[in-house]
C-alpha cells in the first residue's frame, strides 16, 4: 500500500510526478531520496531508479532534479513550520512523522561543545517508508512461548541491519499483546521502551504502528532507565526494547529478569559467533539469560529466519521459515 502520509509531505511538483508513475511499482518503494540539485532517487527493495515526467526511469538525463524550493518545502512540512519543535530530532538526524515513516536528514551541522547542536541548510532527505507487515511473526511464535510453564521465553533477535529486525519485533509485540488462541498463547501486558521511536514510530507520543491492544509505549526514553521505570510503573508481563549492547542495558535486563518479567530484545550481528565476541553480550549469553535466539538474514529475501536457537545455542530445527 502506498501511504497517503508520504504524499502529503512531498512538494506539489514531486507529488504530480509520482501521480504519473506506475502504481504497482509505487507500492514497492522503500525510500525516496532528495538531494539538493541532484536527481530524485527512488529506492526499491533491490534496485533503484529516478523519477521523470513519464514515471520511473533509469535514464539519468531525464530525471527530475531536486530544487532548492523542494528541500525548503519538505523541511517546512515535516517541521510543521516550526524548526524549534524538531530541534531534538534534528540532533538525532531523523524525524518520525505521521504513519511511523521517518526522514533522515543531513546538511551543515552546527556543533556546540563537541556535540551536534542542530543541522542547518539541509541538503539531503531520505524518506524511509515504514511497513507494518502483520503476520511475519506467526511462524516463529510457537517457539517463543513456553507452553509448559505458561510464560514467554526471553528472546533475542539477532540480525544484520536492514533484515527486518524491527518489523519482526513489532509483530511479535502485537502477537503477544493480542494473544494467539489458536497457538495457545494468551494475551499479555506488553511494555515497549522505544528509545529511537522506531518500534512504534510515535509522533507526539502516539504510536503510529499497531502494537496490539495491551501495549504501553514509553517513547524516546533511554533503554536502561526506561526498563526500570516500566517495571515500577506499568507492571508488564513482557518488556521489549530495541538494540541492546551497553553495560547499563545488561544491568537493566538483569533487573527485568529478577522481576519475573519476560524480555524480548534485538541486537546487531551477522551470526551468534560474531555476537559472542562482544564482551557484554558474551556475558549475557554465558549467563544463559536468553532462552531463544532468532537469527535473521536477508538472503534469499529480507526477513528470512535463518534459525531459532535455544539457550545453549542449539538450533531448534533446521527448517527455514519465510516471514518477509
Amino acid at each position: 500500500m502506498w501511504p497517503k502520509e508520504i504524499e502529503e509531505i512531498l512538494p506539489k511538483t514531486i507529488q504530480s510526478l509520482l501521480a504519473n508513475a506506475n502504481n504497482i511499482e509505487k507500492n514497492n518503494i522503500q525510500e525516496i531520496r532528495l538531494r539538493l540539485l541532484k536527481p530524485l532517487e527512488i529506492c526499491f527493495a533491490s534496485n533503484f531508479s529516478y523519477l521523470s515526467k513519464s514515471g520511473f526511469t533509469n535514464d539519468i538525463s531525464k530525471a527530475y532534479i531536486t530544487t532548492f524550493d523542494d528541500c525548503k518545502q519538505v523541511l517546512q512540512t515535516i517541521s510543521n513550520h516550526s524548526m524549534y519543535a524538531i530541534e531534538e530530532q534534528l540532533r538525532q538526524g531523523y524525524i518520525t512523522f505521521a504513519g511511523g515513516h521517518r526522514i533522515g536528514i543531513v546538511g551543515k551541522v552546527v556543533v556546540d561543545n563537541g556535540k551536534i547542536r542542530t543541522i542547518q541548510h539541509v541538503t539531503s532527505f531520505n524518506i524511509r517508508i515504514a511497513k507494518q507487515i502483520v503476520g511475519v511473526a506467526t511462524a516463529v511464535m510457537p517457539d517463543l512461548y513456553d507452553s509448559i510453564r505458561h510464560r514467554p521465553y526471553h528472546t533475542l533477535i539477532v540480525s544484520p541491519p536492514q533484515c527486518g529486525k524491527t518489523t519482526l519485533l513489532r509483530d511479535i509485540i502485537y502477537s503477544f499483546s493480542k494473544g494467539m488462541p489458536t497457538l495457545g498463547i494468551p494475551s499479555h501486558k506488553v511494555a515497549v521502551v522505544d528509545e529511537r521511536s522506531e518500534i512504534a514510530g510515535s509522533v507526539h507520543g502516539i504510536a503510529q504502528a499497531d502494537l496490539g491492544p495491551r501495549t504501553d509505549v514509553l517513547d524516546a526514553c533511554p533503554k536502561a532507565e526506561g526498563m526500570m521505570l516500566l517495571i515500577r510503573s506499568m507492571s508488564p508481563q513482557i518488556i521489549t526494547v530495541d538494540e541492546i549492547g551497553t553495560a547499563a542495558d545488561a544491568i537493566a535486563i538483569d533487573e527485568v529478569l529478577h522481576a519475573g518479567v519476560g524480555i524480548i530484545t534485538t541486537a546487531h550481528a551477522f551470526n551468534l559467533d560474531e555476537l559472542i565476541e562482544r564482551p557484554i553480550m558474551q556475558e549475557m549469553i554465558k549467563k544463559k539469560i536468553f532462552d531463544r535466539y532468532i537469527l535473521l538474514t536477508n538472503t534469499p529475501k529480507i526477513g528470512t529466519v535463518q534459525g531459532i536457537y535455544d539457550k545453549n545455542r542449539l538450533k531448534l530445527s533446521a527448517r527455514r521459515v519465510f516471514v518477509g
Partner: protein
Amino acid sequence: MLVKIIAIVLVISSSTLIGFLLANRFGQRVKELRVIYSALKHFETEIVYGLTPLPNAFKNIANRIDEPICKVFTHMSESFGQHDLTTIDIWTNSWELYKQNLALKKRDYDILFQLGHSLGQTDKENQLKHIGISLAYLQTEEHEARNEQHKHEKMYKYLGFLTGMMIVILMI
C-alpha cells in the same frame, strides 16, 4: 422651528460622534498593541514548555486573547494546511487581511513583519531572542501610543463637538 432644532441636534451629535470615533482609535491602538504583546508572551510559553508547532500554538493563542487580534491568529492557524505557502507568507498575509479592522500603524506592522522572517525558522533559543526583541519594540510602541492617546484623545472629542457647534452657528 422644530425642524431647525432637530437639524441642530443632528449636526452636533454626528460631529461629536465622529470626534469620539477618531479619539477612540488612539485607545484602540493601545489596546491592540497590548493584546499582541500578551499574544507573543503566550507564544513564548508555548515554545518553551510545549515546543508546540506554530499551527497549534497560534490556535491556542487565538483561544486566549481578545478580538480583533484573535481573528488574525485563527486565520493564520487555519492557513497552515496549504502546502505552497511559506511561514512568512502566512504571517504577513493574515495581518494584511485584517489591516482594515485594526487601528495599528505602519510602524507596528513593521515590527510584526520583521518577526515574521524568523518565525519558526530557527531553534528554541533563537526564537526566544527574536520574540524578545519584538516584545521590547512593541513595548516602546505601546508607551508612545499611550502618550499620543493622552495628548490627542480629549482634543479630538472636544474638536468634534466644537466643530458641530461652529457649523450650527454659521448656518444660523
